[in-house]
């Protein structure tokens, strides 16, 4: 997404996805969830050919309010997603890769293949580095 604003299309798709996820949190049995998911899809499908943007925006606003009223208090979140249990859990162990240069040679000898390729990789990076011309103001 390049621009700072979401298009109407993107907003509708996001509403669809999060309402499906909350229906999944409410309906724990899969067949019941499938039934209500199909009903929701039918509701989205009957209005998807709306050409009048004013009406479409009003419908989107009504849909967002309905979502807010019917959302699940503790929706199922994937562990790695924001709000999940494992979100940013391993961030403290993600060391920047320049630390590999500071390894002791005895430690580097434990991974000879990688460090042999690493020198070539660094040379390639120096060759293909994007040249930033500071004179041009954009």
């Amino acid at each position, binding site marked *: *997404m390049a621009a700072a604003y979401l298009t109407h*299309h*993107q907003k509708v*798709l996001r509403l669809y996805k999060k309402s*499906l*996820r909350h229906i999944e949190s409410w309906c724990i049995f899969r067949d019941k969830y499938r039934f209500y998911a199909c009903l929701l899809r039918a509701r989205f499908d009957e209005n*998807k050919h709306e050409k009048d943007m004013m009406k479409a925006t009003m419908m989107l606003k009504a849909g967002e309010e309905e979502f807010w009223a019917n959302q699940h208090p503790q929706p199922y979140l*994937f*562990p*790695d997603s924001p709000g999940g249990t494992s979100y940013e859990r391993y961030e403290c162990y993600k060391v920047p890769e320049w630390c590999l240069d500071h390894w002791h040679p005895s430690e580097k000898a434990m991974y000879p293949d990688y460090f042999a390729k690493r020198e070539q990789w660094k040379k390639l990076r120096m060759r293909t580095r994007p040249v930033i011309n500071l004179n041009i103001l954009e």
Partner: protein
Amino acid sequence: MEDSVSRMRSGSLVHCGSGLRNMAARIIARCVRSLNHRAVCLNSINTAATLTAAPLTHGRTFSQLTNGHKSPLAQISGSSFQVFQWRQYGDLPPLTLETIHDRVLYVLKLYDKITPEKLQATSHFMKDLGLDSLDQVEIIMAMEDEFGFEIPDADAEKLMTPQEIVQYIADKKDVYE
């Protein structure tokens, strides 16, 4: 191994006390030696003490033997001795590009709006398969459920072919060839 088990069953019912402990230790050492050479050293050290280490599935029954309990030995008979000397952490099998590709195509073939014959790795959802953007959202949600991690909306709206989905998952999960 079966005859040693029956011997243990009959032997430990007759003896008790230190004789039972020696008998159990000898039989355990013999059983374990037949499985794993390395385990013998550990077991001969451990048998005098607690026997909780090596046969994890039968730790309770062996410790009961060393304590002199005449517990029913039916649990031992008919079950195999699993001697694990290494830690087992819970984790999924590692992903490879082929397995990701197979799983993605499998999930797509299960979707009823896609005909499995027309599905290729490079078939575009909108142009080749004639799907909607709402269908694409549903497909991405199925991929999230399959692989167990969330695909944010900004990335999800760009994934339009199965090959792109495989590439994205491989990037996120650090799978490379």
